[in-house]
């Protein structure tokens, strides 16, 4: 098992009242799954992804990632864990504007122990695989949205994660670009065995996944 969430609660307190963002979430994810999180705005998709990605804390419940109890880990260990096993893809790409395509893809490796020649080889490999060798010296603003997201995915994949968390990865793209990105995810899932959890509004995108989890007001509901 890759990860297991049981009875996860997350809330914010405003004026003495608790507003629940996540309410009793129970999910088991096996390696190699492709899961889509669906639900309207404010249903808790992003929050859940952030909790799974360990970027956000939760208030109650148990979260095991590769049999490690995440809630008991120190921040340092948590960072070690997610930087090794998890890659993130964002709706608005979140590439660094001051870095070139090449440097953006290389960045996660800088926070891990890779020699410069290893980094070179890995990035070259990735550029090759995504057919963006010719764009390696361009800056993100010089690329189309689809290309930027491609770079974002390449960056997420560079440290060979077991899990990709994608928050509305096609939200800023047109339908043709969306389809290309979803095909890519599917291929990564099927050929490379990368586990993917994506949050999406679109039924079409959700259909690429092997399983869909529906959320409403922070709860899991039957689709």
């Amino acid at each position, binding site marked *: 098992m890759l990860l297991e969430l049981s009875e996860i609660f997350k809330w914010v307190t405003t004026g003495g009242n608790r507003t629940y963002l996540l309410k009793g979430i129970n999910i088991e994810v096996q390696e190699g799954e492709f899961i889509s999180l669906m639900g309207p705005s404010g249903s808790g998709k992003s929050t859940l992804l*952030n909790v799974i*990605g360990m*970027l*956000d804390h939760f208030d109650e419940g148990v979260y095991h990632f590769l049999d490690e109890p995440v809630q008991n880990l120190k921040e*340092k260990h948590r*960072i070690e864990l*997610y*930087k*090794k096993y998890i890659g*993130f893809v*964002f709706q608005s790409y*979140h*590439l*660094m504007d*001051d*870095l070139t395509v090449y*440097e953006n893809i290389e*960045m*996660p490796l*800088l*926070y*891990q122990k890779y020699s410069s020649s290893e980094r070179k080889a890995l990035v070259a490999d990735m550029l090759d695989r995504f057919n963006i060798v010719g764009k390696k010296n361009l800056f993100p603003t010089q690329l189309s949205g689809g290309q930027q997201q491609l770079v974002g995915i390449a*960056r997420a994949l560079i*440290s060979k994660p077991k899990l990709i968390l994608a928050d509305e990865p096609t939200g800023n793209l047109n339908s043709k670009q969306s389809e290309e990105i979803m095909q890519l995810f599917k291929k990564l899932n099927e050929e490379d065995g990368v586990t993917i959890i994506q949050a999406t509004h679109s039924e079409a995108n959700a259909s690429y996944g092997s399983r869909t989890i529906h959320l409403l007001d922070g709860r899991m509901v039957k689709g």
Partner: protein
Amino acid sequence: MLTNYIKIAWRNLIKNKMSTTINILGLSIGISACIVILLFVNYELTFDKYHIKSDQTYRVVQHTKMPDQTLYWNTTAYPLAQALREDIPEIDIVTQIAGPMRRHFEYKNETGKSIKFEVPYVVFADAHYSNVFNIQWLAGNPDEALAVENGVVLTKSLVEKHFSKTSNNYDTILGKTLFLNSKDPLTVTGIIENAPGNTTQKYTMLIAYSFFKKHNPYPSENWSGNYQGTTFITTKNKEIKTGLASKINTWKKKYLKPEDDKRITYALQPVSEIHTETLYGSSPGGYTIPLKTLYIAGVIALFILGIAIINFINLVTAQSIARSKEVGIRKVLGSRPLDLIYQFVFENSLLIIITILISLGITMVLLQLLNDKLSVIDLQLALQWDHIGIVIAIGILTIVSAAIYPALILASFKPIQALKNQFSIKNRTGLSLRKSLILFQFIVVQLFVVAAIIVSQQMQLFSNGDVGFSKEAIIITEAPEFSKLDIYKEALYQDASITDVAFGSGPPMAVNGLQLGTNYRLSGTPVETAMESEMKIAGPNYLDFYGLELIAGRNISENKEAFDEFIVNEKVIQAYGWTPQEAIGKKITINEGEASIIGVVKNFHNNSLQHEITPCILMNWAYFKNNAFIKTTDINATTLGLIEDTWKQSFTRGIYRYHFLDEAIAREYAIERLIFNGFTTFSILAICIGCLGLMGLMSFITARRTKEIGIRKVLGATLFQNVTFFSKEFIGVVLIAFIIAAPIVYYAMNSWLESFTYSITMTPWMFIIGGLLTLVLAIITCSFQSIKASLANPIKSLQTE
């Protein structure tokens, strides 16, 4: 990793050219100013500390109790040194000097041509002198050079100027003969390095004291007179030193006349304190600077560095908003907070190091300017490797305070919020911290501005205040031969532009040390009642020439060899409680002889305005009447050339020199001018840095509240309403700063003004103008940023998601 940091840092600096420049500029101005001031302070504190025996050596100073006051002398009677040497064995070394004095010399060079030159600081020193004070010998035997009766030791600058340009033939100059005043032969026995700038022992030439003694037998055996003799003693044993002064004071009756023994007390002053103790005054050509002034300067230096650092912090944290996305991404990609802290500390340190390098360049230029500007006090500041400590200390201080705080702020951003450009409420404390930093900055700014206004008023008083005599368009030349004064005067009158010529010992106000001292008492009263007075030699037309006003009696009648008439100022008659009329005809005895008062002159400033008007006795005497005062309608090159030609035709002795009276008077205020220039420069710097800081903070705030501005605009707020909304809290800060700064500056400037006898009174408008000036600048700075933010299209600012 490092290359990645450098890359990111570099691209960020390039991308934000404007703010990078502001950042570097603000900080480097602050750092340079701080370094320059600290170097100056350091330089002033090192005076005479370089002598190996510095901490064992004391100057013998003399306190003379007069009926009306105690006089503090840095000079002592000439025979004191030899007597101490013979009678008090606890003292290891006694050395004495006479001078420094200005003297003329002549020598014949290889081709037989006679060369005349003037040496400004001739010191007659005994053979022990070089044993007590560090002197670097380039040629000659240090132990014997001044033991030879007619030995003369030249400094390198003299040799290069008058003997030989090259340094490899010093030995060939040894043994050459020069003539003091073109008649007394001296033999060159040594050549030494120039005296450094940071010594009170000013000399450009040393002559054996035995020579002085031989040619001045009377003063050198006289125990009652203070001429230009200084006595130094050296004792290794500190304990002996404590009892030494009292031992000397009980011993002195062996030599001093009973009345002198009663009023004279000797004290021992460590040589390292000579420069910073104003009580005893400075020797000719030197200056003293109080320790307090130096400490204040040091504090000012740290203040300036402080506001520059605050500015840097403000600007860097303001920019960090733009970096929040980067922080978010880096955190998501696995960077630990420590990695980010490293990165930003590294980045800021890089910026600071670049800034420090630029500052060093600016510092060198500033030092040169300062040295040139203050050549009057022979300032020799230079950036040397010895100062690396100061620079490193400033660098570390800057990095610790300016690099780490913004880095901590940045690294503390939560990744998800950072990515969304949302900041938690917690950051408000960061804002109020920065607000208090701005408050501090503006307190300093107002301190400087108001102080500069007050100092400028005092300077105004110095340069334009009424001194009681006319000082414009007057040229002073020497008049070395009494017998030829009339020839000189008649020749000068040939030129139409020269309207008046007078002779005397010096102008009404003591400039360039042109002041003679004496003691006066009513004839027939005992010596103990004598009081200190200035003695001024003045020709018959002196009063008219300078517009000095007689309030009783008559003017000096005619030129005579000996004096038999005194004109006194009001101070003298005040001492006796006479009215001007009563004073006429009273007989007065001074050290030089007796005469009756024939006139009373209205008080004029016979000392520069830092000091009080002192008793002054004017008399017409052949002695000391060695300066000519020339009034012209127009000072130009032709007139000056004419005066020079006339002088050279009239006199055969001496060397032609001239100066302008008003310039000479202005030089008396060199230290005050330095303070004034300092305050003006620093207040301009402080304002610039302060406004930069405000600008940084405003851009931070407007960046944080773009959305709010957008909403306000959509809801119908006008530009003016928006601008006032964002500016008003900082105007509040400036006002609070004013309230805090005003009493501080009042207190500080009051104590500064109190050190002058003649000072301006502080008026509220000086404070109000300073406050208003700062306020207006602050409003302009604030508006600049908030107008920019308010003009932005609200659609854009609201579309942040």
